[in-house]
Structure formats: C-alpha cells, structure tokens
C-alpha cells in the first residue's frame, strides 16, 4: 500500500514540478519580451531609470517640483544606485532596471527554497516553494519591470533568512549584523519595508530582549543618520518628496478587494502559512518566518493607498510561500509538536498518526497541483502558448485594454500588465518618438522614456506632482506660466495624472493632434496652439 502511495506520490511530484516550471517558463518569456521593449511598459519605469541617470551624473532626484523641469522622485535611492553600474553596459535603457528586478525575484525564490531545504530537508517541497513564488500572478506581473518593489522583497527575504539564525552557535552575531544591514537596504529601496523591520526585530525581541533593543537602536541610528544626511544634502527636498508626498488618500474598499484577490489567487499558501502561524503561536515558538508572514499582512493593508495596488502583497506572497513550505516540510519530517501540557491541556491534540504519513507523499504534490490553476496566467497566442491556451480553455478569456485586446489570460481578471508586446506596439512607439524628436521645445510627457530615448530632458513626474498638489505642497505657477507661453513643443498624455490647474492650462493652450494606441493605451499628442495658428 505504502509503496503504491509512494509511486503515485512520486509521479504527482514530477507533474507538480513540471507545472510550476511551466510557470517559470512563462515568466522568462515575459521577462525577455520586456527586456527588448524600449518604452515604458508600466508608467513610472522611465522615472526610476531617470533617477539612476541623475545619480550617475552626480545629481539628486529629490528636487523642488515647482522649478523646471518640475521633476522629483518619491522613492529612496538604493534601487536606483544599483542600476548605476549597469548603465555603462546597457546604456540609459530600461533593460538595466528590468534585469536587476528580474534577478531579484530569482534570488528571492532561491532564498525561499534554500531556507525550506535547510529547515526541513528534501528537494521537492523546497523547489516547489521557490517556484511557487515565481508562479504568483503578482510576482509575474511586476517582477521584470524597472520598478524598485521586487528588489525590496529580495532584501527583505534575505534579511529574514539571516535574522532567523541570529542565535546560531557560531555565526549568530554575523547573521544578526548581516540581517540588520539587509533590513537597512530593504528600507532604502522602499519605505514599506518597515513592516519586515518590525517582524525581524519582533522576532529578536521574543528571544533576546537586550539584543533586540540594541539592534533596534543601532538600526534606527544608522537609518536616521542616512536620512538626516540625505535631507541636508537635498536642502529638505528628501523629506518633502519621500515622506510628505507619500501621504495619499486611502480607500479601504480597495484594500478589502485586494485582500480577497490575494487570498483567491494564493489560497493554499495563505491557508498553510496562517495555519503554521497559529500552530507556532500556541503549540511551539514563533519563528521569524511566521512573524514575517503576519507583519507582511500590514504591508498588504496599505494597498488601498492611492498609487499602491496588488504589488503591496508581494512580500506577503514571499512569506506565505516560505511558511507554507516549512509547514509541509515539517509534516513530512513529523516534527510537529501537537501536545501541550499533557492530556488535560485545552490544546491537547493527538499527534498525526504515523500511519497517515505515507499519504502525505500523495497529498502534498496534489495540493500544489490544485493550487496551480488558481494562479493561471499565460499568453494565449503563438506556436507554443496558443495550443496550450486552447487545451486549458482560456483562448477567449482575454484581457481587454483601452484600445486593444491582449492575447493574454490572467486569473486576476483585468490587468494592465502581463501581455507580450506586438509589432504594432513597436510601430506605435516609433510614431510617438517621431513626435518627440521633431518637437519644437521641451516635451511635457507623462512617461519618461520617450524623452530619454530622444535625448531630451525629462520634464515632470505626474503622480509625484499630483501627490504634492493634493497635499498643498506644490507651487504650479512657473509650470502654468510655461504652459501658457506654450514653451513646451509637445504634450503627451496617457492617464492625465497631472494636478487639475495644470490640465486646465494645457487644455487652453494645447490642441490634440493624434491619439496613438500603444501597449493597450491611447497616447494623446497635443501641440501648442501657436503651431496650428502658424499653419
């Protein structure tokens, strides 16, 4: 009986690994497709690259937004600084940041696999835990973008890996220091790493209060000193752009929606991680991994902030994949301690019968296989993906953009990301670029790559301007005066995220001349009225 179960289990394990490797293949295809795409795929990518370019030129991206070119960054510097050494290799192209972010996701997945392997042994559960992270819709969608988020998740995962071993008999001190340095790195990639900092220090506090206090003070001192120096060096613009500009409207309904979506897509990992947290809370000692999962929910709770979104759940996805792998690994090794205080205990539960253990060989890969279709995402056309999509019955369940239907299916439903670029997109990009190159003056563009590729200055970061305007921190007078003088040779709108008075001034002084569909969005070209009068 047990031999039959083992054989079935082995077959199911091979199938599960093949399925999750298939997700990895989809991810690699998407990433390579994006590496070639020279324009913004996600609004904001070009601005992150522009920050790196400014750093490489010895300039700060934390500037006064009321002064031409009305540009500033609202994120900390580390991701941008990591791009800088790649610029001489790739040039000022998005592939530098996209490759960095993609590699960060691979490192995160590998770290998850290594932790599960070290803690529970075996190969299949560690491999599936790491692959599960890369199979997540959220990781797939934003992993290969030139955005800071996944690099933060990588530093968070590495930090938790080291902090979890701070009581190692030989390398405890080294692990703690390395963990703290990695936490510092995560925080200086993106501010929201603060929840992982709380989880890590909380874990140290539970085990060694004195070390936790010393570590917390040391981390706060170093992070605070860097913060202060950056603020002084940028004449206070660091504080305005990093802190004040990030106080945005919060819509709780968006958070509830995203929590439900996150659970729907990752049900197995979330349930197992939550179960593992409850188990450790009441029957064992809390681990850094369970605490991290719990605190990562706090990051998710911020997803209703304007400008946030599902990306805020990627830390929780990493933590869930890790904790679920540990939970299953411990089931296999039989190291769950389910009795507390003997038979009279309120929590006395009979240990898992050894007789049931062989069935885990079948049950565990089966669970991973049942979870796999919940995250389904793949291109639906082409010689390989077309037939697969037909077999899976998703050929007609496509994602609809503003002006194009993407040959792509995602269990998320509507998403602006994930699809592959088409020859029509490249042609449209060149058409827009032609407008930029021939513009009579600087270009007021909602995306940075058009101007960067044309060798023109990047003017404005629209969402940052809107954030500052909504917080009463933006003086639009110089910007509006330039618009009224029609000094910009071209305006490019996509989402019209600019503050209302700026949009109004553009409406009065610029005229739409063409709407170009690229990457599923309409890009609106506006010329100054003076040009039309001249004609």
């Amino acid at each position, binding site marked *: 009986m047990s031999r039959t179960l083992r054989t079935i289990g082995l077959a199911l394990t091979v199938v599960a690994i093949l399925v999750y490797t298939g997700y990895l293949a989809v991810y690699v295809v998407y990433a390579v497709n994006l590496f070639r795409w020279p324009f913004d795929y996600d609004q904001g990518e070009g601005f992150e690259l522009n920050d790196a370019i400014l750093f490489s030129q010895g300039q700060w991206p934390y500037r006064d937004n009321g002064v031409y070119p009305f540009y500033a960054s609202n994120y900390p510097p580390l991701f941008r600084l990591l791009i800088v050494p790649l610029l001489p290799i790739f040039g000022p192209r998005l592939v530098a940041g996209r490759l960095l972010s993609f590699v960060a996701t691979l490192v995160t997945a590998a770290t998850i696999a290594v932790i599960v392997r070290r803690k529970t042994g075996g190969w299949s559960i560690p491999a599936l835990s790491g692959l599960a992270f890369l199979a997540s819709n959220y990781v797939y969608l934003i992993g290969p973008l030139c955005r800071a988020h996944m690099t933060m998740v990588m530093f968070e995962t590495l930090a938790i890996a080291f902090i979890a071993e701070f009581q190692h008999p030989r390398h405890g001190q080294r692990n703690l220091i390395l963990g703290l340095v990695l936490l510092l790195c995560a925080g200086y990639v993106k501010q929201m790493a603060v929840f992982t900092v709380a989880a890590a220090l909380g874990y140290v506090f*539970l*085990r060694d*209060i004195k070390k936790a206090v010393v570590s917390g003070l040391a981390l706060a001192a170093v992070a605070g000193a860097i913060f202060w120096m950056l603020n002084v060096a940028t004449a206070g613009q660091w504080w305005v752009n990093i802190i004040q500009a990030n106080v945005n409207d919060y819509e*709780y*309904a968006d958070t509830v929606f995203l929590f439900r979506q996150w659970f729907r897509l990752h049900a197995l990992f979330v349930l197992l991680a939550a179960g593992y947290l409850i188990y450790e*809370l*009441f029957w064992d*000692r809390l681990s850094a991994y369970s605490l991290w999962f719990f605190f990562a929910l706090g990051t998710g709770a911020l997803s209703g902030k304007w400008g946030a979104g599902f990306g805020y759940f990627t830390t929780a996805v990493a933590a869930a994949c890790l904790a679920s792998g540990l939970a299953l690994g411990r089931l296999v090794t039989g190291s769950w301690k389910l009795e*507390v205080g003997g038979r009279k205990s309120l929590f006395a539960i009979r240990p898992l019968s050894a007789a049931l253990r062989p069935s885990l060989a079948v049950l565990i890969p089966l669970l991973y296989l049942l979870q796999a279709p919940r995250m389904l995402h793949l291109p639906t056309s082409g010689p390989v993906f077309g037939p697969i999509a037909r077999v899976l019955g998703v050929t007609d369940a496509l994602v609809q953009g503003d002006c194009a239907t993407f040959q792509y299916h995602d269990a998320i439903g509507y998403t602006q990301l994930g699809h592959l670029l088409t020859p029509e997109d490249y042609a449209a990009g060149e058409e827009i670029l032609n407008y930029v190159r021939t513009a009579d003056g600087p270009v007021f563009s909602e995306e940075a790559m058009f101007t960067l590729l044309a060798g023109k200055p990047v003017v404005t970061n629209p969402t940052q301007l809107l954030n500052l305007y909504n917080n009463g921190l933006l003086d639009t007078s110089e910007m509006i005066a330039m618009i009224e003088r029609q000094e910009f040779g071209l305006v490019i709108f996509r989402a019209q995220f600019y503050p209302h008075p700026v949009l109004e001034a553009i409406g009065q002084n610029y005229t739409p001349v063409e709407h170009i569909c690229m990457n599923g969005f309409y890009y609106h070209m506006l010329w100054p009225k003076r040009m039309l009068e001249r004609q």
Partner: protein
Amino acid sequence: MVTKRQLGVFVVIVGLLVTAGTVGVDLVGAGAWSGFGPLQWIGIGVGLASLLVGAILIRLGNRPA
C-alpha cells in the same frame, strides 16, 4: 526571552486599544460615515480577535513565545 503569558498580555492590551480606538473615533467625530462605518466593524473584529488570542496565550503560562 518573552513568555507566552507576557506576549498574551501585550496582545490583550493591543486588542483593548484597537477596540477602544475603533469605538472612540465616533466620540471625537472622526470618519466619513455616520454611525458605525465598515472600517470600524473591521477594527472591532481585529480587536476582539486579538483579545481572544491574547487570553489563550496568557493561559499557556511561562513557555517561551
């Protein structure tokens, strides 16, 4: 080292603060909703769950948390 009991006391305090804060916002007139808003129901749920978890942890005594 922190014990289950100490952690339980902390969680109970957090639960009480969340519950009191959730109810208390109406007293100072904060929030966009008249009466009890949806965020307050979420807050009450989190607060009561914390109280329950904290109470169980306190019963677990001096085992390491």
